[in-house]
């Protein structure tokens, strides 16, 4: 009898240990999102926004958090598909920079509300030569109630990639090519 109890205990311990390892292993998924950008300060963020013109999504996550890990696994596939066309900014809410952000404040108190996604769409007219100011990316939060599936995130990103291409016809070709 004692033998069986000991065996059951050992099996239970083995299962628990495996589950723990699995959670630890999944935290590596955040590093697998490539290419992606990791911002360390507000200055870095401002520089990125002021010198690039692509659509970004910002992903705010908690490392040891199943939902964050699940969404990150979707981002691994999406980032590879959208290289050069769009990019992902990864923000660990526990990082020094993450802790300064309002959007990260609740991450430990209300983990059910995480992860969060914000989209940053470049303005149509980047630089205003008259006011001499750079127009900023336009931000919006992931629509509430929409599941963060791979398909939904991919669609959300791609519909927000604007076109800066001019439709050419015989009438405007010379102006375009001169």
């Amino acid at each position, binding site marked *: 009898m004692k033998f069986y109890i000991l065996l059951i205990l050992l099996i239970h311990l083995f299962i628990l240990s495996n589950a723990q390892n699995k959670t630890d292993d999944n935290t590596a998924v955040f590093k697998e999102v490539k290419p992606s950008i990791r911002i360390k300060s507000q200055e870095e963020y401002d520089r990125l926004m002021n010198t690039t013109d*692509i659509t970004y999504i910002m992903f705010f996550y908690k490392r040891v958090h199943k939902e964050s890990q699940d969404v990150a696994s979707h981002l691994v596939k999406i980032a590879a598909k959208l290289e050069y066309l769009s990019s992902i900014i990864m923000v660990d809410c526990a990082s020094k920079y993450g802790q300064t952000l309002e959007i990260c404040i609740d991450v430990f108190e209300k983990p059910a509300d995480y992860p969060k996604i914000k989209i940053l769409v470049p303005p149509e007219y980047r*630089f205003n030569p008259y006011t001499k100011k*750079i127009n900023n990316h336009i931000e919006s939060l992931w629509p509430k109630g929409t599941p963060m599936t791979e398909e939904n995130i991919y669609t959300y990103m791609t519909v927000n*990639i604007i076109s800066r*291409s001019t439709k*050419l016809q015989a009438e405007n070709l010379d102006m375009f090519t*001169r």
Partner: protein
Amino acid sequence: MFNLIYSQNIFNKAILFSDKPKTPLIYRGLSNHFYDRMLFGEVDNTETALLNRFKVTKFPTLLIYQTHDNDIKLDDPRVIIYEGKINIHDIVAFLEKYCLPQKTYINYNEKDSLLNKEKAEVRKVNSENFRDTFSSLYERRVIVSFTKDGEFPKELNSFSKLTR
């Protein structure tokens, strides 16, 4: 902005000939990635005059209409057709050869910020020093006031306290 870009006329142009009704995702993305380093245009397969002009018979066709080579404006623009695979890495490498190395608005803004920090100053210019004075003001904005009998208007003194 687009008017400004056209008037600057410093960019080479990428042109996509497509039989798709909407701008393809890859082309939308590239037009943002290379924004302000190259112009992007697209021609629908129904624009027969343009197809004939560029001798395009298959779709998609991507070409570069090269008007500049290393900052030198070409007298006769070149047409370079992309012959590679439809692969983002290959297309980016191809476009990189013809686009400006840096976005122009970044330079413009930095230069302008530097100028903004300068204080305006008032200088007296005469027939002896005017060449040197204006040479030293290269790329600066200058207001010239012509005065009578070398008299210096008092109103101009207030300019020296202003920043631009």
